[in-house]
């Protein structure tokens, strides 16, 4: 090819490229949400004198929001994100893309900084609840820590990882000694987690349920019917931006679960409403894991007249609890579910939502990642 033809091609392709994307982006109808990234996308910002002259993003700066708009609404955005991930992994041979890595089909996001202060804070927050509400009332109080996937695959495959022994001992050293620890770290494997998600699989955690129940001296054994929904794309699917196959989401149900009374609290209005343990409609949500107890919700009460005991359980939990709690229902007449990320304990008290009765079991069940960022837990 001659120099002149090369120059013609360079100039033509460049102008076609930038003009082409300019026109296509102008013509494109903006999307409301990104399903793969599980977030709302920036819409065209308000264009006024005030927004143009605004100094900061908080003041509604047009330019800043326009930049976000052009990024969020760029045509074939997901394909470009996939291209970036593939170049990072396959050309630059990076071991991760935005901290997301893949080992034997398991997608995970590594983190290697233990926020010791926040981990201690988490323990102290639980201690505060214990000292102010639970102590000397004849209640049986327990806590358990759920390892994140990295515990099983990060260090073993050369990825940065925290020192989990130190993590556990930090929690133990700071928790009130009267709160009993139930160790489940060694009862789990990486296969007990979804390949594309942060969470564990409900159909794989019966052993954990039995271990907790055994420690709390309650019988939760029950027969379940498995129901399968697919395709399930976990949170890491979108973050990895790679074409990974969808998984099956299996949930366990039976007559007891279908008949128990579930009351939830609206996080905004604090009004109570009737709901269900599982709602297959929620599988269509941005986060399909919402099928378990509606996903990110602050407060539930589950009442089961067919329980194997008259015992009650108060459980302070994060999202891992959503899929585990249904499997505890068999053993308790009443389970009170509190997610301190979405409701402050002081509000629970203000509305007198919880009865602290003698003989009640109390369980603090939290994953390592939430405890490592415990500033999100609202206690007082």
């Amino acid at each position: 090819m001659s120099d002149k033809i090369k120059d013609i091609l360079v100039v033509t392709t460049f102008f076609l490229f930038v003009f082409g994307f300019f026109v296509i982006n102008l013509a494109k109808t903006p999307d409301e949400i990104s399903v793969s990234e599980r977030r709302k996308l920036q819409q065209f910002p308000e264009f006024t004198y005030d927004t143009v002259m605004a100094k900061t993003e908080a003041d509604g700066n047009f330019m800043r929001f326009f930049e976000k708009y052009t990024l969020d609404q760029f045509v074939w955005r997901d394909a470009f994100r996939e291209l970036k991930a593939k170049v990072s992994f396959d050309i630059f041979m990076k071991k991760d893309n935005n901290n997301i890595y893949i080992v034997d089909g398991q997608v995970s996001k590594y983190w290697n900084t233990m926020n010791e202060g926040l981990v201690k804070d988490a323990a102290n927050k639980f201690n505060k609840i214990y000292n102010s509400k639970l102590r000397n009332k004849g209640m049986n109080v327990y806590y358990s820590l759920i390892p994140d996937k990295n515990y099983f695959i990060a260090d073993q495959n050369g990825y940065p990882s925290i020192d989990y022994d130190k993590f556990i001992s930090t929690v133990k050293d700071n928790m009130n000694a009267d709160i009993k620890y139930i160790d489940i770290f060694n009862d789990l494997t990486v296969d007990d987690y979804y390949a594309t998600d942060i969470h564990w699989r409900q159909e794989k955690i019966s052993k954990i349920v039995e271990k907790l129940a055994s420690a709390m001296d309650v019988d939760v054994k029950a027969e379940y019917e498995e129901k399968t929904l697919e395709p399930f794309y976990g949170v890491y699917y979108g973050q990895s931006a790679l074409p990974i196959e969808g998984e099956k989401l299996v949930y366990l149900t039976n007559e007891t679960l279908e008949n128990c009374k579930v009351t939830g609290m609206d996080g905004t209005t604090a009004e109570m409403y009737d709901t269900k343990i599982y709602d297959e409609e929620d599988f269509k949500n941005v986060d399909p894991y919402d099928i378990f107890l509606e996903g990110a919700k602050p407060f539930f009460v589950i009442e089961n007249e067919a329980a194997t005991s008259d015992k009650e359980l108060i459980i302070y939990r994060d999202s891992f609890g959503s899929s585990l709690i249904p499997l505890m229902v068999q053993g308790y007449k009443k389970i009170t579910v509190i997610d301190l990320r979405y409701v402050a304990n002081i509000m629970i008290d203000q509305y007198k939502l919880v009865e602290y009765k003698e003989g009640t079991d109390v369980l603090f069940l939290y994953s390592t990642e939430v405890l490592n960022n415990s500033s999100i837990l609202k206690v007082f």
Partner: protein
Amino acid sequence: MLFSSIPFLYYFLPIVIGLYFIVPFKVKNYVLLIASLLFYFWGEKAYTIIMVLTSLSGWLHGIFIEKYRGKIGSKIALISSLVFGFAGLVVFKYADFLLTNVNGIFGTDIPLLKLALPIGISFYTFQILSYNIDLYRGNAKLQKNPFTFMTYVTLFPQLIAGPIVRYVDVEKELGERNHSLEMVSEGIGRFIMGLSKKVLLADTLAAFCNLAKTSTNMSVLFMWAYAIAYALHIYFDFSGYSDMAIGLGKMFGFKFLENFDYPYISKSITEFWRRWHMSLGSWFRDYIYIPLGGNRVSKIKWLRNILVVWAFTGLWHGAKWAFVIWGLMFAALLLIEKAFLKKWLEKLPTIFSRIYTLFFVLISWVIFDAGMEGGITGNLTVAMNRIKVMLGLGGVPAVTQETLYYLRSYAVIFIIGFIGATPLMKNLILKLKEKTFARKVINLLTPITYVVLLLVVTAFLIDGSFSPFIYFSF
């Protein structure tokens, strides 16, 4: 506005290019002026008026310098232009530095101005001053049209982070320029290569630097890797910007001078500064060092000249003591080289002189990077601690598992960076182009490569986050 952003690449650029090539030649400068003001306004808003007023001040001073040529009035106009030009820099860039030092020394409590630094003020101020000085010296002709002069000062390809384009270098092109297919093609290629340097290499290396700086598992190897990554990062960031500026300039018919010439292959610090940010080095040489007498003075005065120029070079990069120390460190090295070291180095195998140069350049970047943090001193303590770690005095292990992970993860980027920082590829392509068949193949691959790079860069921008150029801070 950033070159490496979606609004620039896919909104601003096509609109400006479209308008520019549609309108007749006499309107082209106005298109560039309006586009440049919008480009600056996008990120600076209120300070756009400062830039416009500074430009008009430079143009007006030029009128008076010419009007009173050969008379004392011309000199007064020049001095006035220098005072106005430097006053802008002093107020916006150095006032708080000076006031903090005064308060510290005399125990006073003079309130600080706390003004935000207008982006690119050091670059456009130096450009305006170069015009006034060259006009006074008779090296440049008077620009009678204020809009043409403002087009020169605000020209968006080089407005924010250089190279520092002198008026005399574009004087002719401002009035008359050609737009050949070959030049536009060259400009596009240069722009895409610069964009790729910035987005694919500089930003990725910046991520590595941040990982290293925030690591809780530091090691000696990690700190060295950080210093090397930072050296590559700042090179690809700044030279990438210069490539984009030069490329855009060519698209619009301007030929800007080169700003970098593979500085990391230098065999001495003297050579390094002939290859790094050449437009700044030559500005200080022509407008400060030589007027002070250069090296044709007594040894004491020559020493003074060197120290003054390098203290100013440091301060130009930022109103912090860390930058002054950074500049004076180079002054000391240059003096030592001139005294005896350069002769010694020339007798040694090249590898030793390169190691010597790179060692001190790496140390200088560690100081420089820490200088961008902290108050008026810059974070010198952090710099010293990092250097201690590099020298094995930081009480950290030689290597950790985390270090090895990140080195493995970024190995290819480092390798591309090492190759890209040398003229290896450039020389190879030039060599191959001497052969007809290879030249045809390279010509065929060139547009394909550009399209692939544009696609990948776009992908990285869409999936990335806001990442301004380092030299915007100056």
